[in-house]
């Protein structure tokens, strides 16, 4: 039997775990992203090459992770969590700082942002804790989950990186949400809702006055009235809104966006790349992007809920919802709905580390699709 005969390749393919529809959708989105990046980076071929390299790295990571059965992740989740917390503490102690924030670990050959891998580790750990017993979870695992989420959020928030810490916190809470927990402090639904709302509000008040840094407050304030400070932080939002608005329905044309091509739009190949799409391709381009995102989210949800164990369901659903959250926060931010928190647009923004994290989570979703859960774990 030849090693590379058609039959043999089919045989290998059988063992190769990958969801073809999801893979094709991601490739389509990445291709679209590269085209947009070419324009956004003012036709920089070297930027394009680097991003293609990032993509190959990230896709490899996705395909490798897709081969790891979910139960293995579940089994190793406590170690992953401990390893992650250890890295975050290392960052606090020895991390290299840049722009007033200490977010990176310098490994000598590369700089590494531990908060990135926490985006994957946190949902794995929480899903693992909550799927231990039947759903809805009992108070102890709930308490354990909330405690670990808070620890990680605080560790990242002190770097300081409020945006990332809130997003990671959200990904943990999504697992709690899908697990079906219900915070029932009072019997009456409405009173219960009122109490929880007021708790969140007072939390926000404390955070605003005691936890937020001046620059974070300023970002939130300029969100409310960007034109008040046109050359300060509000300037970016204003220019971004001008870029989006001036695109109209059909856009100014590929590579024709004056806002981005003439540098009025800040960070136009990274965080603000959505504005480039909106300016150059108009509402049509935006709708095309939304359609691709929608199909990916739909496919990922389908995969999650067709899986056979609770761990996979919780993990897949929360990773999908987190993916949507990134999209929402980025577009909300560049269109002036949310404060500027520095979240890249998934699959489109230039950059390697967030891409690898993103592809890793889709690797996990693919692995959920293709791996049969061992019988002893099925419920």
């Amino acid at each position, binding site marked *: 039997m030849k090693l590379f005969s058609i039959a043999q390749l089919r045989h290998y393919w059988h063992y190769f775990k990958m969801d073809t529809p999801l893979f094709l959708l991601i490739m389509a989105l990445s291709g679209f992203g590269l085209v947009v990046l070419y324009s956004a980076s003012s036709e920089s071929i070297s930027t394009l090459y680097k991003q293609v390299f990032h993509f190959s790295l990230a896709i490899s990571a996705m395909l490798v992770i897709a081969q790891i059965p979910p139960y293995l992740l579940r089994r190793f989740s406590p170690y992953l969590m401990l390893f992650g917390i250890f890295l975050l503490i290392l960052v606090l102690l020895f991390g290299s700082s840049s722009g007033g924030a200490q977010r990176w670990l310098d490994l000598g050959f590369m700089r590494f942002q531990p908060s990135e891998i926490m985006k994957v580790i946190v949902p794995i750990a929480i899903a693992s804790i909550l799927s231990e017993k*039947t*759903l*809805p979870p009992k108070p102890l695992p709930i308490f354990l989950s909330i405690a670990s989420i808070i620890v990680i959020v605080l560790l990242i928030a002190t770097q300081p990186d409020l945006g990332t810490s809130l997003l990671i916190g959200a990904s943990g809470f*999504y697992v709690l*949400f*899908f*697990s*079906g927990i219900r915070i029932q402090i009072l019997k009456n639904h409405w009173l219960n809702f009122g109490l929880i709302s007021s708790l969140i509000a007072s939390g926000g008040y404390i955070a605003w006055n005691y936890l937020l840094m001046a620059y974070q407050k300023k970002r939130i304030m300029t969100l409310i009235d960007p034109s008040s400070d046109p050359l300060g932080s509000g300037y970016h939002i204003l*220019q971004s*809104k*001008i*870029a*989006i*608005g*001036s*695109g*109209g*329905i059909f856009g100014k044309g590929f590579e024709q966006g*004056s*806002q981005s091509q*003439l*540098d*009025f739009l800040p960070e136009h190949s990274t965080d603000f790349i959505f504005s480039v799409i*909106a*300016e150059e391709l*108009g*509402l049509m381009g*935006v709708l095309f992007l*939304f359609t691709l995102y*929608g199909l990916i*989210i739909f496919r990922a*949800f389908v995969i999650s*809920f067709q899986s056979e164990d*609770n761990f996979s*369901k919780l993990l897949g*659903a929360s990773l999908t*919802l987190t993916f*949507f959250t990134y999209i*929402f926060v980025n*577009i*909300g931010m560049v*269109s*002036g*709905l949310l404060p500027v928190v520095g979240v890249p647009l998934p699959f489109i923004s230039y950059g390697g580390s967030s891409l690898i994290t993103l592809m890793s989570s889709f690797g996990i979703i693919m692995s959920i699709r293709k791996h049969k859960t061992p019988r002893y774990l099925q*419920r």
Partner: protein
Amino acid sequence: MESISNTRLENKLLSSRLKLALIFILLLTLLLLTRIYNLQVVNYEYYQEESFGNQMRTLPITPNRGKIFDRNGQVLASNKLTYQLTLTPEKAGNISTTLLSLKKTGIINEDDIKLYHKNRKRFQKFHNIPIKTNLSDAQVAEFLVSNQFPGVDIEPYFNRVYPHGASSVHAIGYVSRMNKKDTALYDKDNYSGTLFVGKVGIEKQYESLLHGQTGLKQIERNVSGRVVDTQIIKPAMPGQDLYLSLDLDMQKKAEELLKGKRGAIVVVDTRNGEVLTLVSTPIYNPNWFVNGISHANYNSLQSSKDIPQLNRTIQGLYPPASTIKPMVALAGLEQGTIDIKTTIFDRGYFQLPGVNRKFHNWDRNGHGSVNVEDAIAQSNDVFFYSLANKMGIDNLHDGLKLFRFGQKTGIDIPGEQGGILPSKSWKKINKNEPWYKGETLNAGIGQGFMTSSPLQLAVTTAAVANKGQLFQPTLLKNTQLPGQSITEFKKSDSRQIPINNIKNWETVIDGMRQVVYSPKGTARRLNNKLTYTLAGKTGTAQVFGLDAEEVYIAENLEEKLRDHALFTGFAPIENPEIAIAVVVENAGSGSSKAAPLARQVLDVYFNKHLNNELTQ
């Protein structure tokens, strides 16, 4: 069994949460789409304009100012490519600190900063507003090497230059920086990029022709303000070149003759009113004003007792003295008060009946029996005292009014003064006093209240030469748009003084001829080697009223109180071409101090024209 029911329960729970999550996603997606719809569709026009405004700036293209030439095509005013230092407020972070740092480098001083702030109000924040104009090559080179100031640039522009310096300054005038008053005067859009406007003279009079039409260009810039692309929306229309009727050679001759004196020489073409010479001295350098006059220069002009900035040809009002006698004689002849044969006997003075005061002839010996021709030739005062007395002030006024004394000639440069032609009602209004008979006598010899400008004298002399055709004098002869042919500016207006008897005019002209050619003529020294025929009239204007019995001795008087020397004339007598008026302040007698100057200026004209005729 328990496990199965648990699984069912769990699936129910999970799918309800999934539904919730999907609703959550849909709502937030809807929120995003609403936002983007709002930006891209509802407010599309607003943001489109904002994006356009970000990158595009409309800037004026300053038109090239028209040049000024004399009648022979000699350049009197032109433009020279020079460099200026500009500051664009939008690009410079803090204007005050930028200006202070610039001051430290030594390229500008406190005055430039003050001027910049004053200037700024006229411009938009994206305009490159000049800080300092007319930079030297060394300054440009030095600055370009060390420039680190954002928004500060060196830019080329056309600077106005007057290649002949002070020559003809009173006719041409000068341009200078626009001030508040100018801003109100001119169209804001058309002057949006203009630095200089005409302040006096031709430069001011024909500002609208010289200026041209400001164009518009659109520049596309990136965020740092660098110009990526320039598109001309409307090209600038350059100003028109002006050809004046002035003859630069005659101008220079006149300036040379009046050098060190206060005075004026005006020459007009008797056939069409064109002004060939318009010189007032002292002259001053118009180039001083173009880029803002320095304190030293300004003070030197302001403190000079000679008032260099006074254009004596149109603003200097002098008693016309005896130069008015031909016109007075014409008034008397045409009104029938006297005829060409009327004689009087001059004993050296004239007395009003019943009045002791004697009105002396300039020659106290008296000229004996004189008719009107003799009276003009010898400038006999007693004849004109008698004539004026017979006419009375109102008839005298009416006769002289035909020559437009006391009114502006309407020459095409600003600032003209009309002078005074007195009458009973004039005195009532202005002095609130009745008219005295003695004042009529003074008016008859061009003294007393009567004043006129040198230009008026030249123009009225031309009218006598023309036998009554009185032209409105003009300086602008032709205009030319760059690249097009020269076109004639409008012809000057003229009007005919009504003639009763042409003999009267011929008699007066003959009297003026005798001034030069008669052995008794007051300007008889002029006829030596004349290549053309010349008629004229001398005048000596009293500045200081002497008592009746006092004798005028120049040396006894302060310079400023001495007589003004005057001469008017025209040539050739048969077919007059040009008329001249010369006034030299406090120089003494017209026959010795003014008439020779007139001869030399006329010589320039006729030498040229005779030569032309010979070569043709």
